[in-house]
């Protein structure tokens, strides 16, 4: 008889991810992913000036602010057919990269590392042995005995106080945790250090975007940054130099710490390269444009069906006709009325029925590509790039596989990336790619300015007839697309198809699972009442329900517990 487990971290009003699984013989036999709240934020855009849309979309989500701002200006630019000056492309690219680096570091260390790292093992670690281990895998100069000792002391202080504080909710001592005390200490120390480097990445966003968390420098047709190398108030040599110095530190942390830690954890949990694959259809859009018209990119896009790497399809542009024509949203199992619709004609009429796993059970629609569920995110991007022979992707993917093999003594192949650990590895691979590209795009910007080009903006012109546009961005969580219909200089319709909608999608009319759901099937659970393994796989996608509302709940009702029904 199947056991039903619900992981529902909410009672506060934010929209949240809820996972339900059925467990038979200590393995997941069925799964449902649902979002518990949705608010139709897109409706607020109807009737507004398309040039202001990005200000509003930037408020969809406090984690993905710049991401929604960028997709929005691109959608309007696509509709109005306005090109973006080179400087503006580079500045936007740098903001997107810096934001993504921040996001990837936060995801690994703050959100998911403690799925693999057992805090309560740390007091047993030997800091000197930890240093020796660390030096054998990375040149990071802060892998010192003193730093390890200091981090261990912090954990000891928390543990001995009897107040676990931030660690209150962990599944410590779980049988699926099996790192040595030294590796636990190593990862925890980097969790502490990560704070400094994620902040530096955000500072880059702040310098170029003039503020964080909400950037101010975007405009349809370019950016609002004044470029003048001799002016103290404009983007000048000093500011470019500040960015260069900040990036240097962030790049070092990505390559010598984050990338290595992911490979080390992966090498020590090789069984997780066989768990959590799920949907093997992958979708990624090209990003980081290298010219004004958007005809060449530093990140490749395309799609892969059924895990057929050799049969990869390529998107030539970020608003490729195939992409434009192939996306629909199915609402069979979502709390909305209607039939599968293209986003330009998308409707959002709610029909709340309460959770019913056989019928409607989520506020997330089910986006489909040619009718198929697609996995999006760093894994999709890395596989699409790898399959196309993209040199930068191949460089870091091969480096990661080699590192896993060297540390763990296990054979590591690209095929293993279809897995829970594959998603973490791909995110680290992508982070290293982006780190290299950050420095490249800063140089491109600097060189272009040095050539005397200070142009940052092309004036958009509204046509008299109705126009449609799609703006895409390969965001930290995967393919994001904003779809806009403009009439009489006003927004007639607006839909955002966000990465977590692809991944957290419910079943569609044919009953096909979304990626979260499919990835959980067959996952072994050591202790069903402590479903750590479910969290590992769900976290590997980097879920983010883009419908955040933020009330503080003083009763602390946000206590999240897995509940067995």
């Amino acid at each position, binding site marked *: 008889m199947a056991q039903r487990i619900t*992981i529902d*971290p909410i009672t*506060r*009003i934010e929209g*949240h*991810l809820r*996972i339900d699984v059925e467990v038979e013989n200590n393995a997941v036999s069925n799964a449902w992913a649902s979002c518990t709240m949705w*608010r*139709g*934020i897109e*409706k*607020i855009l109807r009737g507004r000036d398309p040039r*202001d849309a990005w*200000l*509003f979309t930037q*408020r*969809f*989500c*406090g*984690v993905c602010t710049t991401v929604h701002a960028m997709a929005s200006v691109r959608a309007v630019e696509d509709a109005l057919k306005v090109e973006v000056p080179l400087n503006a492309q580079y500045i936007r690219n740098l903001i997107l990269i810096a934001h993504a680096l*921040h996001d990837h570091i*936060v*995801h690994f260390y*703050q*959100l998911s590392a*403690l799925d693999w790292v057992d805090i309560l093992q740390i007091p047993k670690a030997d800091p000197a042995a930890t240093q020796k281990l660390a030096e054998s895998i990375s040149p990071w100069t802060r892998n010192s005995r003193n730093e390890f000792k200091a981090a261990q002391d*912090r954990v000891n202080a*928390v543990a001995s106080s009897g107040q676990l*504080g*931030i660690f*209150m*909710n962990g599944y410590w001592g779980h049988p699926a945790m099996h790192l040595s005390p030294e590796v636990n200490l190593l990862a925890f120390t980097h969790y*502490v250090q990560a*704070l400094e480097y*994620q*902040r530096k990445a*955000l500072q880059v966003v702040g310098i170029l975007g003039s503020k964080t*968390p*909400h950037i101010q420098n975007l405009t349809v047709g370019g950016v609002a940054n004044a470029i003048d190398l001799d002016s103290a108030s404009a983007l000048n040599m000093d500011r470019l130099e500040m960015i260069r110095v900040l990036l240097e530190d962030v790049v070092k942390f990505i390559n010598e710490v984050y990338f290595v830690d992911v490979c080390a954890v992966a090498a020590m949990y090789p069984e997780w390269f066989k768990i959590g694959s799920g949907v093997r259809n992958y979708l990624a859009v090209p990003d980081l444009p290298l010219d004004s018209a958007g005809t060449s990119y530093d990140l490749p896009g395309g799609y892969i069906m059924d895990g057929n790497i050799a049969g990869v399809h390529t998107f030539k542009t970020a608003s490729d006709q195939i992409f434009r024509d192939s996306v629909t949203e199915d609402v069979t199992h979502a709390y909305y009325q209607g039939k599968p619709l293209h986003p330009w004609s998308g409707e959002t009429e709610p029909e709340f029925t309460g959770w019913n796993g056989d019928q409607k059970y989520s506020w997330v629609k089910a986006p489909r590509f040619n009718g198929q569920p697609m996995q999006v995110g760093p894994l999709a991007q890395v596989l699409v790039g790898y399959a196309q022979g993209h040199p930068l992707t191949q460089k870091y993917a091969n480096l990661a596989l080699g590192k896993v093999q060297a540390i763990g003594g296990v054979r590591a192949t690209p095929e293993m990336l279809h897995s829970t650990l594959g998603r973490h590895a791909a995110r680290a691979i992508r982070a290293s790619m982006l780190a290299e590209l950050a420095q490249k795009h800063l140089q491109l910007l600097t060189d272009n300015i040095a050539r005397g080009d200070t142009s940052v903006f092309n004036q958009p012109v509204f046509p008299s007839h109705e126009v449609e546009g799609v703006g895409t961005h390969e965001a930290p969580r995967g393919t994001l697309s904003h779809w806009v219909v403009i009439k009489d200089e006003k927004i007639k319709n607006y839909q955002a198809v966000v990465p*977590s909608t692809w991944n957290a999608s419910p079943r569609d009319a044919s009953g096909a699972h979304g990626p979260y759901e499919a990835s959980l099937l067959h996952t072994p659970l050591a202790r069903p009442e402590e479903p750590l393994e479910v*969290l590992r796989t*769900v*976290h590997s996608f*980097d*879920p*983010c*329900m883009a419908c*955040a*509302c*933020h*009330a*503080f*709940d*003083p*009763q*602390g009702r*946000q*206590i*999240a*517990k897995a509940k067995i029904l």
Partner: protein
Amino acid sequence: MRKVVIGGIGNVLLGDDGVGPYVAQLLTSRYEFEEGVEVLDLGTPALDLIDQLSGKDVVILVDSVQTDAAPGTVLLYRKEEIMRLRPAMRMDPHSPALVDALFSADLFGVAPGSLLLVGIVAETYDTTCSLSKPVEASLGKVIAEILGELDRCSIGYRLRAVPAIFGAWWATEEHSEARMPVTAA
């Protein structure tokens, strides 16, 4: 120079949840503060809230609150009370917000010296850029509480002779600056 943050938290597209950012814009427009004081519209931060809290001497946050009290009621919470709550299970990056950010900052040894959360009980979280009447009516009291905290900490501020630009670009006409209280209630 002391490092002080006054931060408005919330989603400006979701009714009364926007009260925090709204108050931040109101303060910026009407008051000048001593050096070292930052007034920030923080939106709906996740763990990056740690960056805003860490290493600060005084933090004042404004956020909507979900309780059974009447809408518009202003409630105050100190750091110690907030840290008696449990951290969230981390399902997505929004889960670890204020409580977790404080715990993390504390673990890393960078928690702010003092923290006051000025909470306003919301009436509605509907998709709108407007504040409800009860929340709008509470704004004077909210500002008074913030200024009172600055007084308690001997942090200087003064009313601007001429208001600066009101930055709440999202606000609907009914919440344009003209109808807002000029000084604290």
